[in-house]
């Protein structure tokens, strides 16, 4: 008997050995995937990195202003941009540029933005992070048809809020200073439209932020980081089922999980470089990728280790700065960080790298540190007052499961088993109330809620992660992760969407409605 058990122990060890042998192939992908999606390779020779200077998207002057309102005008049009050095790429741009012009508003001053659509397709403009009345929020079927009223085929025009040629979007801007961005939000076709260039910054400033001694002027730089892929002829490559973007929506396999580009653009230039003083800089980081998650850090790290001091989240200042060695951003998330280049010796090349990347997507951009310069800025220990929402504040709890499911024979992305329909309302929150939403996911799903800011209450069985602090509008949920958020519904009554900001998932139905009640 003891002989037998010894043999069986050996057999168990043998099984362990087989298990180990099976594990070896897994080692390559030990950490799993950092993004949900498939890599779409460029078909032309990619340039060496850090050749071209980092551009700053131009600020758009209002065409006029009155006591309470700034009026802006934007024309959405086809144009040509030099995203790769020496390569002409056709884009769709707000005023023909990518990123679009940066709009700047002050808290409490209404912004009215007139959009004129000269593109060959309908568009919808959403101000991401904006506390906006529903008719101006860019509901996915509130189409702005092209000038001249072109094709509407392929669309369910179930909305009365459809206009032709041009329209005004009204933004009350009754919200704190924050890094907002505007981008296309048309039902079924958001991903390819943003891929072609329809995205830009809209910053809100306020007195509270102005009083802080933060870096400003040339030392405040918004960075829209976006991965893209290029075809052999220099055009943007994207696996649309219908590339006219008027017929069947969605992308071909294997890109249903998300489209990952192999070129990192920052403010519309591939792997740019920037000359910086040896001083503090404020970088407003935006993950403008359709599906790619980023883990950004500085290489080399500054002498004291933590290179990125976070001062703000999606929706404005944190209560206190948080120092990070690296920051993880899912699509649409913003991190407002201070980097002190004075910590480096003059002449140092500091690369902003993406730990989640591989090959060419590791490098993002490079800073060349100049001599030390006069720097009056600093990062105060207290930045703002941010009330912490409590579990007990929530009057309603809702469960939402985001996952892949078969819909009519096709693989789609659903919320609680439902593909997006403008008629299906998932939640009817009352204005003035706080709700607890429990979010679960199968893959990476960055979940964005329109109108209502939220705070992360828990992640898994623990509290918020180091990157979850402050007011947010988008939360990064990883595979089989459960996240609780506390949402404060305030502002306007009406129907809004919440959705996955992996734009391929969004186009393939991972969107739902909530209707706020007065």
């Amino acid at each position, binding site marked *: 008997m003891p002989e037998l058990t010894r043999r069986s122990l050996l057999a*168990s060890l043998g099984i362990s050995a087989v298990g180990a042998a099976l594990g070896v192939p897994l080692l390559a*992908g030990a*950490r799993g995937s950092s993004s949900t999606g498939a890599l779409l390779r460029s078909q032309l020779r990619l340039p060496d990195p850090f050749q071209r200077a980092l551009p700053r998207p131009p600020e758009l002057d209002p065409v006029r202003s009155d006591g309470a309102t700034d009026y802006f005008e934007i024309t959405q049009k086809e144009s040509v941009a030099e995203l790769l050095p020496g390569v002409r790429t056709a884009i769709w741009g707000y005023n023909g540029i990518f990123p679009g012009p940066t709009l700047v508003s002050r808290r409490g001053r209404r912004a009215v933005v007139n959009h004129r659509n000269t593109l060959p397709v309908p568009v919808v403009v959403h101000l991401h992070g904006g506390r906006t009345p529903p008719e101006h929020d860019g509901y996915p079927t509130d189409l702005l048809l092209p000038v001249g009223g072109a094709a509407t085929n392929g669309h369910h025009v179930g909305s009365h809020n459809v206009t032709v040629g041009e329209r005004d979007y009204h933004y009350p801007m009754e919200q704190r200073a924050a890094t907002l961005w505007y981008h296309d939000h048309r039902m079924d076709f958001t991903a390819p439209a943003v891929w072609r260039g329809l995205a830009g910054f809209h910053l809100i400033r306020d007195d509270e932020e102005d009083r802080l001694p933060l870096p400003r002027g040339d030392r405040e730089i918004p960075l829209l980081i976006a991965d893209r892929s290029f075809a052999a002829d220099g055009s943007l490559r994207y696996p649309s089922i219908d590339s006219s973007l008027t017929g069947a929506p969605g992308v071909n396999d294997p890109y249903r999980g998300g489209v990952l580009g192999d070129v990192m653009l920052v403010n519309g230039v591939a792997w740019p470089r920037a000359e910086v003083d040896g001083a503090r800089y404020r970088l407003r980081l935006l993950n403008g990728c359709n599906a790619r998650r980023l883990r950004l850090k500085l290489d080399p790290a500054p002498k004291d280790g933590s290179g990125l001091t976070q001062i703000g989240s999606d929706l404005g200042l944190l209560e206190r700065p948080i120092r990070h060695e690296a920051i993880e951003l899912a699509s649409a998330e913003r991190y407002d960080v201070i980097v002190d280049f004075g910590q480096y010796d003059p002449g140092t090349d500091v690369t902003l790298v993406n730990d989640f990347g591989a090959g060419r997507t590791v490098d993002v951009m490079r800073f060349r540190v100049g001599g030390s310069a006069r720097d009056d800025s600093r990062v105060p220990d207290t930045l703002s007052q941010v009330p912490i929402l409590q579990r007990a504040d929530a009057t309603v709890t809702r*469960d939402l499961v985001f996952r892949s499911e078969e819909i009519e024979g096709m693989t789609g992305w659903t919320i609680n088993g439902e593909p997006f329909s403008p008629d299906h309302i998932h939640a009817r929150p009352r204005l003035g109330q706080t709700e607890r939403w429990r979010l*679960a996911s199968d893959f990476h799903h960055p979940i964005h809620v329109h109108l209502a800011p939220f705070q992360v209450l828990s992640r898994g069985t623990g509290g918020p992660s180091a990157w979850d602090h402050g007011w947010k509008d988008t939360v990064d949920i990883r595979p089989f992760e459960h996240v609780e958020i506390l949402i404060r519904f305030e502002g306007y009554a009406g129907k809004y969407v919440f959705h996955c900001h992996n734009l391929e998932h969004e186009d393939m139905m991972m969107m739902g409605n909530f209707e706020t009640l007065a």
Partner: protein
Amino acid sequence: MSPDPQTARAVRPARWFHLPFRLLSSLVAVLYALQAVFAGQIMAGTFGSLLVHQNTAAFTDMVLVVTILAAVLQRWPGRGPLWPVAAVPALLGLSALQNYLGFSRLMTFHVPLGVLIIVLSFLLARRAWLLPGAGQATPSAEREVSGVA
């Protein structure tokens, strides 16, 4: 005529000192199998299952610690084999590794190791029940035990 004292000592403890090891190793196998159920619930989006999964992991580790004591008992004074005294701590080691992988969200290892642990825990329980002990106690040993009690 009383039984030979040597024989009595050899047989008498076997029954009682093997039973805890058998029951506890079976409990461990059941708990690990339950963990697969909770893992499935997490994947299905059932809220709260992650906490149950985590708490069950902690409870299973506590049971394993007690099982180590039981493994020692079945050897000394139970005169059972020595291997459980090594096997149960080894399983606890794998379990600790499994907890680390779970907390670190290293699912590419967590899931296959979970499968392996379930297989090993069932083998352990099966071997525990195949050990000499119960049912082999002699009537004289029974009397001896009652006599002592």
